[in-house]
C-alpha cells in the first residue's frame, strides 16, 4: 500500500535533501533577480546564484520583510511577466497596503501538490469526502485547500466559512469524513450541533480535521478531538509562502513536517537575527524554492516556533517544527513583562470549567496598566453556587499570574457570550493610553 504521496522526495536522505535545496536556491536567486526589488538589492550587495555553494550560505542573503512587500506593491517582486501569471492572493489590506502574491501555472501546480502531499500524510485518501470550511476568495485557505483536495482525488465540498446550520447539513447529506476549519470556529460549530440536538460523534462520519491559520495550544486540539470524536492535524502556512501546505502534521501528530524540498526554513533570534540552536524558540524565516512568479527569499514570518530535534516514526526526513507559539507582533508588554496571548490560552484550556473563548483587554487606570481576562464558562459548569464561581475565578487568576507574572482581573462570562469572528479570532484589545 502506498505510504507516501511522493516517496522519494519525502524520504530523501538529509544530505541529498540539502543538496537539492542548494541547487533550487541557486535557481530561485536567478529567478528572483528578474524582479526589480531583488535585482537592485543583490546587485548592490554583489550577490548572485554563485554566492551559494552549500545551503548554509543562505545566511549571506538579506532578509525580506512585510514592509519590503508593501514598499514594492504591487509588482516590484514579480519575477515573470505579468502575462504569465494566472492568479493572485492578497491580504485584505484594510489596515494599510495589502500584501499581494502572484502565481503562474507552475506555482499553482506545485502548491496543489504540496497540499495533496500534506493531506495524504494525515491519512486522507481519494475515498474521503472533504469539506473545506474556510473562506474562499483572496484568503488562501479556500482555494489553496480546494486544489489540493482535488489533486489528491478526494471529493471536495467547497462549503466556505460560516453558515453553521448548512455546514452540518452538508456533513450529514454527503457523509463528510474530513474537514478543514480554524480552531476557534470549531468550538462554535460544536455548540450549533448541540443546539440542533446532534452529536458529531454519532451523527456524522467525520474522522479527520485539519486545523490551522491561528495559533492554538495542544489542549485546544485535544478538546476539538474529544468534541468531534476525530483526529485533528495542525497545519501551518502563510500567503507569502503560498498558503496552506507549508508544514503539516502527519498521522503521528509529533510535529509539523516542513516541506524542505519546496522551502528553506530557518529559525532566528528576532533581536540578533542569528540562528537559534535546534529546540529553541525563535522567529521562522522562510524561502520559496519552487516558485517562479514571485520567489521570496528569507522572509521574516513573525511566527514563533522551534525545530523539534526528533525524528518522526513516519520515516519522512523533512524536519519538524513545533506548533506556532505566537507571533512576535502579538506580544504585548505589561508592567515590564513580555506576554504572549498563547500563554494565557494555555492556562485557560487546562481548566475543565472553562469554555472555548476568552478575551484579553488592556487598559490604563490611574496611570496603571491593567489586564482583564474575560473567560467563557463551559456549558454545564455553573452549578448555582456562588462560592464555587469565586473559587474558579480565583484559580484562573492565580494560574494566569503564575504564567505571566502579572495579576489579571478575571471576569467569568456566560457560555458563548463573547463576540465570535468567522475569520481569525481577535482576542487582545489594547485600549491603553500611550504616554
Amino acid at each position, binding site marked *: 500500500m502506498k505510504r507516501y504521496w511522493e516517496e522519494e522526495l519525502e524520504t530523501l536522505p538529509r544530505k541529498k535533501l540539502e543538496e537539492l535545496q542548494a541547487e533550487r536556491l541557486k535557481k530561485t536567486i536567478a529567478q528572483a533577480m528578474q524582479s526589480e526589488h531583488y535585482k537592485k538589492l543583490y546587485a548592490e550587495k554583489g550577490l548572485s546564484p554563485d554566492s551559494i555553494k552549500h545551503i548554509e550560505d543562505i545566511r549571506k542573503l538579506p532578509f525580506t520583510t512585510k514592509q519590503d512587500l508593501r514598499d514594492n506593491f504591487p509588482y516590484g517582486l514579480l519575477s515573470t511577466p505579468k502575462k504569465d501569471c494566472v492568479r493572485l492572493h492578497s491580504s485584505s489590506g484594510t489596515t494599510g497596503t495589502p500584501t499581494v502574491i502572484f502565481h503562474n501555472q507552475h506555482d499553482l501546480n506545485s502548491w496543489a501538490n504540496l497540499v495533496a502531499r500534506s493531506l495524504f500524510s494525515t491519512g486522507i485518501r481519494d475515498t474521503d469526502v472533504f469539506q473545506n470550511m474556510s473562506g474562499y476568495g483572496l484568503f488562501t485557505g479556500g482555494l489553496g485547500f480546494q486544489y489540493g483536495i482535488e489533486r489528491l482525488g478526494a471529493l471536495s465540498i467547497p462549503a466556505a466559512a460560516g453558515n453553521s446550520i448548512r455546514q452540518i447539513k452538508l456533513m450529514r447529506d454527503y457523509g463528510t469524513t474530513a474537514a478543514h476549519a480554524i480552531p476557534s470556529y470549531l468550538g462554535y460549530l460544536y455548540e450549533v450541533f448541540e443546539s440542533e440536538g446532534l452529536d458529531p460523534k454519532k451523527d456524522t462520519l467525520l474522522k479527520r480535521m485539519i486545523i490551522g491559520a491561528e495559533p492554538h495550544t495542544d489542549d485546544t486540539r485535544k478538546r476539538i478531538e474529544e468534541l468531534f470524536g476525530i483526529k485533528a492535524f495542525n497545519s501551518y502556512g502563510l500567503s507569502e509562502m503560498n498558503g496552506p501546505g507549508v508544514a503539516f502534521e502527519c498521522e503521528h501528530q509529533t510535529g509539523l513536517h516542513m516541506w524542505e524540498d519546496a522551502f528553506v526554513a530557518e529559525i532566528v533570534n528576532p533581536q540578533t537575527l542569528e540562528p537559534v540552536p535546534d529546540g529553541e524558540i525563535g522567529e521562522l524565516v522562510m524561502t520559496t524554492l519552487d516558485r517562479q512568479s514571485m520567489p521570496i527569499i528569507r522572509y521574516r514570518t513573525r511566527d514563533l516556533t522551534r525545530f523539534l530535534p526528533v525524528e518522526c516514526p513516519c520515516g519522512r526526513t523533512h524536519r519538524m517544527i513545533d506548533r506556532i507559539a505566537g507571533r512576535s507582533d502579538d506580544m504585548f508588554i505589561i508592567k515590564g513583562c513580555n506576554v504572549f496571548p498563547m500563554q494565557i490560552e494555555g492556562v485557560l484550556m487546562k481548566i475543565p470549567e472553562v469554555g472555548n473563548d476568552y478575551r484579553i483587554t488592556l487598559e490604563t487606570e490611574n496611570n496603571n496598566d491593567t489586564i482583564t481576562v474575560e473567560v467563557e464558562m463551559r456549558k*454545564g459548569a*455553573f*452549578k*448555582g453556587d*456562588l462560592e464555587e*464561581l469565586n473559587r474558579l475565578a480565583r484559580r484562573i487568576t492565580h494560574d494566569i499570574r503564575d504564567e505571566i507574572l502579572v495579576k489579571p482581573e478575571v471576569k*467569568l462570562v*456566560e457560555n*458563548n457570550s463573547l463576540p465570535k469572528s468567522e475569520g481569525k479570532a481577535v482576542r487582545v484589545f489594547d485600549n491603553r493610553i500611550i504616554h
Partner: protein
Amino acid sequence: MIYQVSTFLENKPGYLRRITTLFKRENINIRAMTLSATNTSWGILSLIVPDPEKACKTLNDNGHSSVLRQIAALEIEDKPGGLDAMLEKLESLGINIENAYARVVNDGETAFLVVDTHDIDNAAQRIQEAGITMVSKEIVYGIK
C-alpha cells in the same frame, strides 16, 4: 421537593432585564427573587416561579446558564417578630443559611421564608422534626 431556579448573571446594565423580558415573552411569573453578588463582575439570580423546570429550560435554551436548586420554604407569621422567631429556631438547630428571601402569602397572615443551605435534605428533615411548618409546593409556586 421544592426548587428555585438559579441563574448565572453578569453584572452589567440591562442583563437582569434580558431575563425579565424573556419571562414576559414566555409568560413566566416571578413569585419571589433575590440577587446575590460577591464582586463587581457577576452574581446569581435566584427565582421562585410556578414551573421551575420549564423556566430553567427556557433560560438555558436562551443562553443563560441555570440550574434547579432544592430549597426549603418555611412558614412564618406575617407580623413583627415573625422572622425573628423562625431564625431563633433555625439557630437552635444549628442551621446556617446560605441565602434566604421571603414572600407574603395572599391570606394576609402568613409569609414564607425561602432557605437555601448546604445539605438541604438533612436540614429539611431536622426542620420538620423540630415542628416547623413547611409550606406546600402549591403555595410556594402559586398553583392551586
